[in-house]
């Protein structure tokens, strides 16, 4: 599943090192357009709904944080 997340990220912007980077938002490596694409892809791939409340840097600064958010939202939907 994490692989699927990394694949989505690579598709959106292959220039970033998603395994190492932990300031994707703070350092401007993911802009608002990429973020909107990412939200849409994550919703489709993992069957979750991401709301504006979830759209905070802490949830998108690293692949690990994103994965944590995905799992949390999947749990909440159950």
């Amino acid at each position: 599943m994490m692989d699927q997340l990394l694949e989505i990220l690579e598709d959106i912007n292959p220039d970033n090192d998603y395994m190492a980077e932990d300031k994707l938002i703070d350092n401007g490596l993911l802009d608002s357009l990429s973020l909107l694409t990412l939200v849409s892809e994550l919703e489709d791939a993992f069957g979750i709904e991401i709301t504006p409340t979830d759209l905070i840097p802490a949830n998108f600064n690293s692949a690990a944080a994103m994965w944590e958010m995905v799992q949390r939202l999947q749990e909440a939907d159950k």
Partner: protein
Amino acid sequence: MQYNSLLYLLVFLPVVMLLYQLLPQKHRWKLLLAASYVFFFLLSRKLIIYLLFSTGCMHYIGLWLNTCDRDLEDFRGAEDFHTQKELTARKKRGILWLGVAAQIGVLLLLKYFNFVSGNLNILLSKMSLSFTFPTLKLSVPIGISFFTMQAVSYIVDVYKKKTPADRNLWRLALYMAFFPSIMEGPICRYSETAEALYAGERLTYHNITFGSQRIVWGLFKKVVLADRLSPLVELVFSKYTQYGGITVLLGAICYTLQLYADFSGCIDMTIGTAEMFGVRLPENFRQPFFSRTASEFWRRWHITLGAWFKDYIFYPLSLTKWIKSMGKKARLKFGRHVGPVIQTIVPLLAVWLSNGIWHGTGWNYIFFGLYYFVLILTGNLLEPLIGKSTDLLHVSRKSIGWRAIQTVKMFCIIVTGELFFKAASLAAGFAMIKSIFTAFDLSALSNGSLLNLNLSVKDFLVVAVGYLVVLAVGIVHEKGIHIRQQVGSWPLALRWSFYYAAVLLVFIFGAYGGSYAPVDPLYASF
């Protein structure tokens, strides 16, 4: 009493600092609150009522939202919990909109009622209708655009449970009225600044020296540079019909530089003052003229306003169901680049229209907002095309040449925007732009006419050297070097010589007294 006045710097601030230090830690925030209200009352007199209303309203709305969440907890585990949850969500949405409407409603009423009624009256008279909308005599309190944004962000954050509702009205009042930032921001978030405001941290040598340095740097930008350019800017923009070509262009460039030095200088003073009390306020500028695109410019200029619009308008709108569904359809039809761009059209339009309206009353402000909407949307849309073109031409987008061209292009875009921003009206803005081209004459550079614009050769020289210093500091900051920390590590004698020299420079080269009229902080009127 402005931030750059002697009364503020030599009387108000030192007295507040002295009393602050004398008080026990737990009472210090109360002194900051009292000082903030005295400061605001001296500036706004009876208009303080708007600040009181805004604060009282956000406090009540916050508590109401909190009560809803608490009441819902009583149903946890009950059979109808999900029904209650939905009812609570609906009720909370209603309370949220009520709170936001009350805050924004007052702002719009004060700033836009007469503009709207005036324009409607023009329309009615063109339709030969005798009905007219009234115009009201309204006074707008200083800083309302800033504290309203803070109030809205607090209400939304409590609604989203990002921050708990503060039960203490007076503590909230301090967050809203903190005197260094009440006039021009930066626009703070409750979750980031409130804690430090109430902490009552004692004054330390480090905080006082570092804060003072920032204040002196702000004074330099405001008093030496911005205020010195003011007479030229006011002359060109008020008598724009008498000028054209290079003179108007010079006026627009000088206004852009003046606005930057004025606003960022006042923000330096604000951040420096807060720093002395151990309060860290968010940065509002990050070398904006180094920007290469319009989006980047707004991530470097008035950062807290851009972040506010992004967090409270752009993302919430982008993630509404119908816009997300539109985005998905657009992605399927137009691909992975154009699709998301289409998804952002409505949110971006809302952001930039709000940005224009927030800045002031007039069609030129609305045009200013829409100008950046078109620029950013076009930039996003053309991005892949530009990438392909540069690849085809073997031009590296990381090369110094390309970056320099982009920076110069962006500077021209900024100057054009600011010209409309400052112009007396939209028509005046267009007339000025037209006159730059129709009356362009290089002889203005040599016939001495530029020296008849209220600025002497000495003034031009001080301004040129001063902005070179600002540029040099910007380059150093861009490299991630903290000048104040560097200076702080120098030997005592050298360090204090530097401090005294900086203060002396402001005193010697400051544009005050004599023929210089005092200039109020430019953004305080927005």
